[in-house]
Each structure stands twice: as structure tokens, then as C-alpha cells.
């Protein structure tokens, strides 16, 4: 007797830990303006004040509140990561679904295209895009999405190929439903579970890519983000450890939580693996 999805999902203690942290981050992101009403770029105190003084997590090299930065950074970082993932998933799913559903030369062309994007070293390509577009939140989303859709396309194509031959799809074709309707109502819902798993992991990757770009000085200059904080603090790593350590740990925990939840989802959606 199989346990229900939510039972299996929530039974895993690691998933609970991950979910709790993500919920916290999400709440902070939503309530950023309430929790830290000041502009995170405002100079509020002396530079390099250590944590646990006037400011809970200290101040940075210009005297900006680190905690305020983390709170507002949660919003930017999550927004960039989630939006770029959504864009990548939407585009990748479209390419993969069309390729898998229509097959033949369309499949050939689209898979060549996917292969092509996988051949270009992705981080380098993201760098090129940012250099051409110039760094801003919007352009980070575009660049990250552009380099992360191919795996989604592959996953969806594979699923579509296996779903396509099943009876309910055949029935829909025989019933004369339009291709787009069949794709949306019959095929895609069945590819959802691997899509969710891959997508959740993409969010984690997007956070890492954003922080790496910021580390190289290519983050969005007007939005406080975690990567920005590390980029701005890296020179002071040794005399002001908290500037890099704190946002670094926050990134680590968030990426970790997303992975834990993603794995939990995977296990819950594919019980065969989990019970092996």
C-alpha cells in the first residue's frame, strides 16, 4: 500500500528542515520593507562595526547594516533566481514538448539547438550576455535563463516521448483535439513531476550563478542581493569576517534547503527509488 505523496514528502525530516528555512526566507523577502524599513544602501553607522553591537550582524565597509542588507537581499536574490528559473522552465518545456511531440525534423532541429546551447560553456556565455546587456536585475534574469533551459528541454522531451504513446494521448488524437490542446491538457501535466524536481534544483543553481557573477563584480548595482554583499565584502574577508561569512552561510543554507526539498520531492514523486 503506497503512502500518499504528502505523507511521504513530509515524513522526511530533512525536507522539514529545508522547508522551514525556505519559508523563513520567503517570509523575510515578502516582509522586507516591514522588517527593515530603511534603504539597505543607507549609511547608518560607523564602518566595520562587528556583530552583536548596535547592529545585530554588524556593518559593512561603508557603514551599512548587514542585517538590513540580508533582509532586502533575500527579496532580490529569490526574485532573480525564481524568475530566471520560471523563464528557463517555460522556454525549456516549450522546446522539449514541441520536439518530443512532433518528432522528426522538428525534433532534430530543436535538439540540435539544445545541444548547441549545451556546447557553449554556460558560465562564460552568461558573462558574455551580461557584458553585452550590462548588469541589472532584469538582465541577470535573462542571462541566467538563457544558459539554464537546455536540461529542462531534455527532461521534458524525454517525458513527452514516453507519454505520447500512451492510450489517453492516442485517444485525444483520435478524438480530433488540437495539438496545442493535447500538449497542454494531456502531455504536459504528465511531465510535471520531473519538471518540478529539475526546476527546484535550477533555482539553487541560479542563486549560485547570481552570486558568482556578483563576485566577479557583475551583479545588479541598484538592488541589494546576497551575491552583491559577498562581492562587496570579499576584500575585507580577513578583518571583517562577517561581511562574507554571513551572506555566504545564508546562500549555503538556502541552496542546501532547496536541494533537500528538491530531493524530497523526487523521492516522494518516485517512490520506487526511495523505497529501493
Amino acid at each position, binding site marked *: 500500500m503506497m503512502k500518499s505523496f504528502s505523507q511521504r514528502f513530509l515524513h522526511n525530516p530533512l525536507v522539514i528542515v529545508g522547508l522551514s528555512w525556505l519559508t523563513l526566507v520567503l517570509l523575510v523577502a515578502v516582509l522586507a520593507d516591514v522588517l527593515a524599513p530603511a534603504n539597505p544602501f543607507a*549609511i547608518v553607522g560607523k564602518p566595520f562595526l562587528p556583530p552583536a553591537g548596535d547592529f545585530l550582524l554588524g556593518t559593512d565597509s*561603508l557603514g551599512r547594516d548587514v542585517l538590513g542588507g540580508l533582509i532586502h537581499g533575500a527579496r532580490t536574490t529569490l526574485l532573480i533566481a525564481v524568475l530566471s528559473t520560471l523563464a528557463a522552465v517555460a522556454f525549456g518545456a516549450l522546446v522539449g514538448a514541441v520536439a518530443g511531440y512532433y518528432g522528426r525534423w522538428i525534433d532534430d532541429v530543436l535538439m540540435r539547438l539544445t545541444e548547441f546551447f549545451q556546447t557553449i560553456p554556460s558560465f562564460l556565455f552568461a558573462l558574455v550576455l551580461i557584458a553585452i546587456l*550590462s548588469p541589472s536585475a532584469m538582465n541577470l534574469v535573462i542571462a541566467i535563463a538563457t544558459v539554464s533551459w537546455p536540461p529542462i528541454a531534455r527532461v521534458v522531451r524525454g517525458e513527452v516521448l514516453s507519454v505520447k504513446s500512451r492510450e489517453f494521448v492516442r485517444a485525444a488524437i483520435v478524438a480530433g483535439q488540437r495539438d496545442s490542446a493535447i500538449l497542454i491538457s494531456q502531455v504536459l501535466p504528465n511531465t510535471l513531476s520531473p519538471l518540478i524536481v529539475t526546476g527546484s534544483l535550477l533555482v539553487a543553481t541560479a542563486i549560485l550563478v547570481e552570486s558568482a557573477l556578483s563576485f566577479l*563584480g557583475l551583479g545588479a*548595482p541598484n538592488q541589494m542581493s546576497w551575491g552583491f554583499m559577498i562581492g*562587496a565584502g570579499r576584500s575585507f574577508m*580577513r578583518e571583517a569576517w562577517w561581511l562574507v561569512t554571513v551572506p555566504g552561510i545564508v546562500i549555503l543554507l538556502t541552496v542546501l534547503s532547496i536541494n533537500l526539498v528538491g530531493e524530497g520531492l523526487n523521492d516522494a514523486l518516485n517512490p520506487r527509488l526511495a523505497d529501493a
Partner: protein
Amino acid sequence: MLIIRRLAAVSAGLLAAAVLASAPASAQKPGGTLVQITQPEPPNLAPYISTSGPIGQVTAKVFDGLLEYGFDLKPVPSLAESFEVTPDGKTITFKLRQNAKFHDGKPFTSADVRFTFMDVLKKVHPRGIATFRELTAVETPDPYTAIFKLEKAAPYMLMAFSGYESPVLPQHVYGSGDIKTHANANIPVGTGPFRFVEWRRGEFVRLDKNKDYWRAGLPYLDRIVVRFIGDSSTRTAALEKGEAHVAGFGAIPYNDVKKLAALPSVEVTTKGYEMVSPIVELLLNTKHAPLDNQKVRQALAYAIDRQFVIDNVWFGYGKPAAGPISSNFAPSGMFEAGKDYNAADRVARANALLDEAGFPKKADGFRFELVHDLTPYGEEWQRFGEAVQQQLAQVGVKVTLRYEDVAKWLKRVYTDYDYDISSNFLYNLADPVLGVHRSFHSDRIRPGTVFVNGARWSSPETDKIMDQATVEPDPAKRGALYRELIKQTSEASPVIYVLELQFPTLVNKQFKNVITSPLGIYGNYATAYRE
């Protein structure tokens, strides 16, 4: 100022430059490898075609100039043993050294000088095209005499003969083929104290002692290795561990300099930039409303907290700037403090000026919005932009930051003029004609030419002062002209002068005599030695 004194002496008759014998002290023992950090890696080793900063840090050890300069900015002999300038300033005669050889063993002669200045520097050197514009011919009556013929007097030219600025090239090497894509562009051959051995890209350039150097007994060092390390904290670590010994020009983050200075093994000096004199500035687009309004420009100048920026962005390595000319020029009478934008009540003044100019604060607390294009030269510029953003917010000016890479930024500011405020640092160089006029003279409003009059400031009064100062032989009058220029430009405020940057140079204490000229690490290290 050197040129002026020189010209004053010239007007009394012919001048013979003193021959300073380079007398190496004998206590220094030869040997040792000095590792210098240069950031970023130079694009090539062709200082005759590119003046990109890192190139000179390497090639100044390989190429000699006709002259070098002391800390007082007076010339001292190098490949030229002496020189004379005629009273009209239109002829300069160099007597050349007779025992100098290039690294390939061929002798150095006046033909090389003619070739270097007429065929190379005047034609393809980025600054040489302007510096040597008045140079019409180099005559070579014998192998050890070179006579420079000038169209008009150009006193500033005498400041441009160092091995860094005008490297003397062997004609037999660089004379054949296209100089712009020459095979020796990355295999420099000169007469300098060190000869080029190897450049492993991404890693280092290796220079070994020139055993046949024309200054007997020099150099002391066996080898110089110039290393390239992309990451700033790694550069600091290399210096801290003693894996590298010299670094300058901001290669080490300013906050790390203090930490390294505390080590017993490292010495920090701010000398060696007297012929550079960089000034950090905010460029205002004077053709864009509301920056076309002088009151607005003055208000912004008042709003900047210079000391905060010096303390927290450049970690103390600077002093408030008062005008377009660095205080390094004070001894020559060309310096004066401009309008006092650092007054105690500066914020109140800024607010008052903005009200007067017709930009009252709106309901959201802001008067108007501007975009600040950050200088893409490293993180301190980003921090600077963020600090300026907060300071301008205090007087009700909302600033958005834009960060683009060097190519885009240069195009935006100096070609398209599609900006409101931008930050930059401009070198005063060895003379205001070379380093200062470019920022204000209306004939330097040249779309497509970088680091000139990007503010598009144009005023017949200031143009006239600069035109006079270019050819004015009397140092006192010239000084007075420049003081007037400072007064007028700081009042009009097309550019906000923030601070005179004092680059720290770090030297491992094992090594002595490394920074010996106003060109600092653009020097040749001939007399540097290891203890």
C-alpha cells in the same frame, strides 16, 4: 615647475644641462630576484604603441629614455648625457652616451633616436601624437648628437623623455616591417638595465640582468619577475607571504595596505606618483538639464563628503581635492585651493542653492533624479558610487547607479555623451598642458576620443587662459594663469573634484632603493638591491 625654470634659464642664454654622474654606491651586493605584482596583466609589451599602465611597469626596466627625472621633477641624464635648448625654444640638442648597447649587442646611436621619435612615437604613440606634434625633424649630424627641431616652442615636451613615456627603440629591430603589428611587440629589445627573457601569459614576465648595461656595476638584481594575479585578495596574500615584493597603482586593495603596512616585512610609500598626480572626480554632463545650471553643479559639489570617501573608500590614501590641478604642483606656483566646497555648512548651502535654482523638494523628499555611470575600474569605484548616491540623497537628489564594462562606459561618456554624472580619475601627468587642458578646453570636445572634455565644458575665458599658458615662458606668469584657471573652473564646477589619490606602493623590506623617481614603479630599478 621644471619647464619654466628651464625656460627662464634659457632666456639668459644657452643652457647646458648638468651632467649628473650616476655614482653607484659600492656597499650594495649584487644578486637576488625581485618579484613585482602588476595588475592587470599588460596586453602587450609595446610601450611605443600603447600607454596602458601595466605595460610601462614592465617595459620601463627594458627600455631607457633620453632622460630620467628626479623627485624635484628636474631632468637627469640617461641615454642623453646632456641637452641644450635654444632661447626660442625651437631647437633641443641632445648629446648621446657613447657606450650604450642594445640587448642584442648592437650599439645605440642617434639614428635610433631619430627613428624612435620621428617614425614611431610621433606617429603611433597614443600620447606622443600630441606631445610631439610640434616636432618637425630630428637631425643627426653624428652618431652621438640628436637635434630636435620644433615648429613652435613646446616647453612641456621636456617632461616626456623618460624611458616610460618615450622608450628609445633600436632601429635595426623595430625599423623593418609594420611597427603596428611588429613581431617584437612582445619581445622588447632596449638598452635598459634588464633584458627581456620570457613572457608566460597569465603568469609572469621574466627579465634578467643586462650584464652589458652602460652604467658600470648596475643593475644589482639578477632578475625581475613581474607576476599577474587576477584576484585582489590573492595578491595581498602573495605579498604577505613574501612570494612577491613590490606592488603599486592600487594593485593591493587600500584596506589591505594598512594591514600589510603593519607587518615587519613590508614598507609602504606614497612617493613615486609625482609625475602622475591622479585626481578622483565626478564628471557632470554640462549640456544635460539640470546640470547645465551652475547652481545645481555647485550644489552637487557641496553635497559630496570628501573626507568620508577618503576614509572609507580609499582608506586614507588621498586628500581632499580643491581644483583641477594637484597640490603636487604647489612648488611651481601653479596650485591654489579653489572654491571651498568642504565648508562646514556645505549641506545647508547645497540645499539652498538647489532651492534657488528652482528645484524644490517634492513630496517624496527628492528634487530630481540622475543616473551615475560608475567607473568600471574595480570595486572601490562601486563603493564610491554608492557613497555618492547616499550623499546626494541627503540634499534631495535621487541617484540611480549604472555599471557597464569599460568599452560601453567609454562610448557612453566620451562618444555619445549619454550620461548625467560619471566618475573617473584623471592623471595631471607631468604638466597641466599634458594632463589638465584636456578636461576643459573646448577644442578637446571630441566625440570618440576618451578621457578628454567629457563634461563638454566650453568657455572662451578658460580657453584663453590655457592657450596663453601653453606658450607662456615666464614661470611666475604661467603660475598666475593656472591659479586663475583653478578659480574659474571651480566656480563653474563642470567637474567635481573629490580627492587627490595617493597610490600606496608596497615594498618588501629586503629590497632597498626600489622607488627612486617620481615615476615610481614605472622606474627602471637599476639601483634596487636586496639586503
